[in-house]
């Protein structure tokens, strides 16, 4: 795409600015921003909102009470291609959200070992089994051909969303 080609060398966070103006090719240097009080937190309600273990814990609990949702070596000291892995992650999450509409019980866990990508998902029993098998085969083949590496999908079915507490 033209907009992404122009900003490829500037870091993927600048993509957000250039999306609105596809004709301008100048760079805008902004720092990535995050409202730390509100990131990845479910806001407290009256006590009737069911929340899973993943959603109930804030991001500062990662590595203490939570694990990681995406496991790759890009963010380690002296390793590169972190941005490529992140973009792939975003695409894979959106793809899974769209391929299994209303069936995903929780966030997807992405594991990268050597060449292959393992997508681990908790799925609700909304669709009949043969439809699930078809969707698994379809997504595995499509993603493998798209990313040119083995992509495996591991599903676990669950009767309903696993609730940790009610906020």
């Amino acid at each position, binding site marked *: 795409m033209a907009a992404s080609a122009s900003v490829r060398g500037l870091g993927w966070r600048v993509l957000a600015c250039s999306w609105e103006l596809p004709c301008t090719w100048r760079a805008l240097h902004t*720092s*990535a*921003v*995050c*409202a*730390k*009080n509100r990131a990845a937190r479910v806001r407290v309600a009256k006590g009737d909102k069911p929340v899973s273990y993943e959603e109930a814990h804030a991001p500062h609990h990662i*590595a203490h009470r939570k694990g*990681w949702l995406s*496991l*790759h*070596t890009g*963010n*380690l*000291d*002296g*390793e590169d291609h972190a941005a490529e892995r992140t973009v792939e992650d975003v695409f894979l999450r959106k793809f899974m959200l769209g391929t299994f509409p209303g069936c995903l019980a929780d966030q997807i866990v992405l*594991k*990268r*070992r*050597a060449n292959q990508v*393992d997508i681990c998902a908790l799925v609700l029993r909304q669709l009949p089994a043969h439809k699930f*098998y078809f969707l*698994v*085969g379809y997504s*595995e*083949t499509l993603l*493998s051909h798209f990313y040119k590496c*083995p*992509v*495996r*999908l591991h599903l676990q079915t669950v009767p309903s969303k696993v609730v940790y507490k009610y906020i």
Partner: protein
Amino acid sequence: MKWAPWSNLHMDVPKDLTKPTITVSDEPDTLYKRLSILVKAHDKAVLDSYEYFAVLAAKELGISINVHEPPRKIERLTLLKSVHIFKKHRVQYEMRTLYRCLELKHLTGCTANVYLEYIQRNLPEGVAMEVTKTQIQQLPEHIKEPMWETLTEEKEERTS
């Protein structure tokens, strides 16, 4: 080997039975004085478990192994908390890299290849490995004797 995806049937690549798995050759095997494996990860528990696995594998093969833990490195970023103003309010993120160093002493090339292949196939996700090999080689013939002895012999030949 053409890779074909099999959903939910995790089949390995079939073994080629025509090729022999054990090969015998007359060349002397390469010798390694030291094999240093540095393993990096974000999670200490994963590193502990992988170290236990690697040490167990080395003991089974009869390789002498030493483990030590280099100090961790933390990379910190400070970003603005808000989209527009509020320069005084910032957010800090950090990326922690924990290390573990496994040192194997006095190996042959075959042992090293087998051990490294086993270790690397079972590397967990999110863990990176760097291998440093120190090889022992025989001293070349032309360095074995000191230069001045051959030089004095040549001078004597020229004068006589």
